[in-house]
């Protein structure tokens, strides 16, 4: 069986961006039709929105907002990954810890993100920390669930075999525990990361602590639909970049078994 080199696989993957572009452009066509039907006040045209986006970038407002939002989102996400991941490992390894932590995680998942925004604003004021805290408490239970499930379903026979060969613990952790854990943990982390951007923008909108959400709040006050759409496009662009240039390549790297089945060329495996 011929296997494609890493460089060619990367090229095939990037080539798949055309398919994504086709899908998004069809959505823009639908947006344009909505604009033609309902007018600028309800739905500004895509071209006006992109022009407004360009103006915001030229005025130097775009990059600082993206930076603020990214710091808030990634800070909360990192804390949630560490806290949720470690607690999940504990819950997966110990039945007592699972009985203790699982109901709390279920309860926290049940609290709406908007309620956390209000609470964190009351506790920490309109700061970036309040935004990151909201991200932490809304996404940590998702990571916890994935981590706990991964830990609980470890193959005991495989573990015993590794131990009987006296595999050192770093090898045990890296080659036995981690690959299995990642198959559960990675989807949870990907969901948490995507959610963290949305929660960040929502919290920023209410807290006025800068970032893309703050820009959206200003556009709302000014009843400037075009600018609002420009900010929406910005956050959607960020999400797409994170999904296709970060999460999906990592997902493919981890899921080795999906790559290059016999008789499958680049057309079946390439792209997003």
């Amino acid at each position: 069986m011929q296997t494609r080199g890493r460089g060619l696989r990367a090229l095939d993957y990037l080539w798949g961006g055309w398919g994504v572009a086709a899908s998004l452009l069809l959505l823009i066509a639908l947006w344009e039709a909505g604009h033609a039907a309902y007018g600028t006040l309800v739905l500004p045209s895509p071209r006006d929105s992109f022009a407004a986006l360009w103006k915001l970038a030229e005025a130097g407002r775009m990059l600082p907002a993206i930076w603020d939002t990214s710091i808030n989102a990634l800070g909360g996400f990192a804390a949630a990954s560490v806290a949720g991941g470690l607690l999940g490992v504990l819950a997966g390894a110990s039945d007592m810890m699972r009985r203790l932590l699982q109901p709390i995680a279920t309860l926290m998942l049940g609290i709406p993100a908007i309620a956390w925004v209000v609470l964190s604003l009351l506790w920490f004021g309109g700061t970036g920390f309040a935004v990151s805290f909201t991200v932490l408490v809304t996404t940590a239970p998702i990571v916890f669930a994935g981590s706990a499930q991964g830990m609980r379903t470890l193959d005991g026979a495989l573990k015993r075999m590794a131990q009987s060969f006296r595999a050192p613990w770093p090898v045990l952790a890296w080659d036995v525990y981690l690959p299995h854990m990642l198959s559960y943990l990675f989807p949870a982390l990907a969901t948490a990361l995507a959610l963290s951007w949305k929660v960040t923008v929502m919290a920023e909108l209410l807290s006025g602590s800068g970032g893309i959400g703050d820009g959206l709040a200003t556009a709302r006050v000014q009843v400037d639909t075009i600018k609002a759409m420009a900010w929406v496009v910005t956050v959607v662009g960020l999400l797409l970049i994170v999904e296709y240039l970060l999460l999906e390549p990592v997902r493919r790297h981890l899921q080795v078994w999906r790559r290059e089945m016999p008789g499958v060329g680049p057309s079946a495996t390439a792209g997003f």
Partner: protein
Amino acid sequence: MNTSVILAYGFRPFFLALPLAACAAVLPLPVLWMGWGALTALPAGLWHGHEQIFGVLCAALAGFLLTAMPSWTGKAPINGRGLAGLVILWILGRLAFWLDPILPPVLVAGLDVVFLPALLLVVSRYGKPWEFFLALALLTAANAAFHLGRLEILSLPVERVLYAGQNLFLVLIAIATGRILPVTLRSALVETGQSPQIRLAPGRRHLATATLVLFALADWLAPFQAVTGWIALAAACAQADRMVELHHGRALLRPQVLPFYLAQAWMVVGLGGLGMAILGLDLDPVALRHALGLGAAALVALAVMSIVSLRHSGRAFPLPGVTWLAYGLVSLATGLRMATALWAPAHMPIWGVAIPSILWAAAFVVWVARFGPWLLHPRKDGQPG
């Protein structure tokens, strides 16, 4: 000349006659652009567009369908008198257009509209694949609409009908290549020492076809509207996405594969450019239409004609080297036609029209010089057809 051989299978007479129509379809253009008067009663652009789409490309389509459909369905091919009747109807349409300045438009219309319904009737015997049947029915309607518009019976801009016809051919190319490529790609993989086991993901093919259908619809219902521009861009991206099907190392560079790849690339250029032109960029839409017709459609037509003539004359791959010359001449003609119109419009008469017309005609002369003898003689393996 043995007429029973020529009329033994659908591809033979149509592929033999097509190069003549291809040469004739560009003849009035240099004459007009050089300022030597007009050879046609219709505006030369419309005459040329009609002949390229409903004359040349429809002949290629007829030859392909009348050969491929019996193979796909296992039913008997049309040959002998029935095939001769179809060819005569096609020739009558061409004669009518060549004599357009001296014939009344009603007579031209009457002679030209008969061929496609007759072909549709013949093709309907096979029952499937339905998508070819539907596309052919729409092409038939488009040709009828062209003449009704010209005769002012319908208040319809005939340019739009021509564009609709061209868009239908883009859809047909997307569908047909989905059936042809697995075969040609496997042969190219074997020729280059690779494993012929391939599985082309249908999703990409279907997305490419669906976006072309959407573009055809939008271009008909809302021409030059922003929605159509975005859909054109989406269709361009979907065609680019499909190009990955052919990324198989050196197999891509074989003459039975590369023209399809280049045709996809021309579609990307044409649709992408049209989309941007509709959305406000200062680009000549007619030049971009040539990327779709002269570039994509003609390259696929030449490739299909070469492959069908090779296989159905009882020969095995590889294709003769001269096919490269034909592909190269058409590609060069397309590049010159587009580049001159977009970046050097002052040089259009020579570099944008006369030289591309000569290159285009030369491509078909080269093709018929090499493949003509195969079409005129019985199959090499002694089989019927």
